């Protein structure tokens, strides 16, 4: 089986894109193909999907690591990071959402910045960019998450729950996510903050398509995130 046309090994061979994947059959193929045009190594962690998402990702040219049961996005990220770090020559890990809300160009910009400024981590932020399309409730919830992250980690991030990140291998090795669910984002920040390595935020554009709006976390689910953060 010949995977979709993709960038050769010359395109960022030291970078692994980690995509946690759970029931995104409608978009995952396009997302993987889009990423692979620029970044050769993509690992999708199929978190027990029931709609064949894993097969579609594999057909699109991604390496698929499959959880036998659904564990949650945080657990999938941890698995993907561990897999990426086990690959020979892996130097950067890029976390990327499966629902197509992130731009590959943003990831490339962040990767370039990490290399140029020798940063251990670059976090994507919706709020450094002017193009914020989030609704009022979502914005309030995201700001609350930022506040909690700031209280618990001391890191002044503007957007704690953005799925697009570039993490250098030495920092990624220090990440041990124990929050299987959605509260892992603050945990990643916390673990990277503890390393004391340099980091930065980079403005990214998040596309809230009808698809991601329909699929994405409802504002009610952010109650779960906040509770998870407070009662860890």
């Amino acid at each position, binding site marked *: 089986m010949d995977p979709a046309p993709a960038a050769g090994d010359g395109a960022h061979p030291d970078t692994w894109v980690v995509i946690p994947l759970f029931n995104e059959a409608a978009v995952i193929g396009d997302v993987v193909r889009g990423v692979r045009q620029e970044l050769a190594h993509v690992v999708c962690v199929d978190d027990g999907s029931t709609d064949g998402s894993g097969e579609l990702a594999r057909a699109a040219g991604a390496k698929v690591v*499959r959880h036998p049961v659904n*564990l949650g996005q945080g657990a999938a990220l941890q*698995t993907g990071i*561990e897999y990426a770090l086990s690959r020979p020559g892996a130097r950067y890990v890029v976390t990327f959402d499966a629902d197509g809300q992130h731009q590959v160009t943003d990831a490339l910009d962040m990767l370039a910045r990490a290399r140029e400024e020798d940063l251990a981590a670059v976090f994507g932020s919706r709020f450094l960019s002017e193009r914020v399309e989030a609704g009022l409730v979502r914005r309030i919830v995201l700001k609350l998450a930022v506040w909690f992250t700031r209280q618990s980690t001391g890191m002044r991030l503007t957007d704690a729950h953005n799925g697009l990140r570039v993490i250098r291998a030495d920092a990624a090795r220090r990440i041990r996510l*124990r929050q*299987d669910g959605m509260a892992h984002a603050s945990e990643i920040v916390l673990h990277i903050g503890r390393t004391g390595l340099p980091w930065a935020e980079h403005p990214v554009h998040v596309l809230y398509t009808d698809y991601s709006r329909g699929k994405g976390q409802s504002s009610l689910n952010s109650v779960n995130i906040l509770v998870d953060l407070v009662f860890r």
Partner: protein
Amino acid sequence: MNPDGTPVSSGITLIQVLLILGIVGVALLLNRTTADSRHQAIRRLLLLGFVVAAVVSVAFPTVLSQLAGFVGVGRGTDLLLYALVIAFLSFIATSLRRTRQLTSRITVLARELALAQARIEDAESRETPSSAQDPAPPPPSPPADPS
């Protein structure tokens, strides 16, 4: 039962027997769990105290009312309700903690399984050079025939 809640004097009633049997049964069921020894010992002592208190309160209902009056609660049933609320909350807390421990164990297990599977697939794809997914060089010698 008399209207004021004191037992009739004609010995043990059926409900007393049923309640005591039920409490003992639950106590035996709860005791069949395992955890680290110190917490387990504390839990068992608490459980023993609970069982004794439950039996006493069923056998001598007036004791509960007297105790309630002593601690400033109106009736023995109210005291029982409060004690139950506390017991229920502590049960929620304990089972939540246990569930988390269990979940994190399952996560570790499932991850190991997934990564082991991925290692096997990677090793297989290295043997067939047609799939150019893996940039790593092929192993120096093919593995021995497993059969």
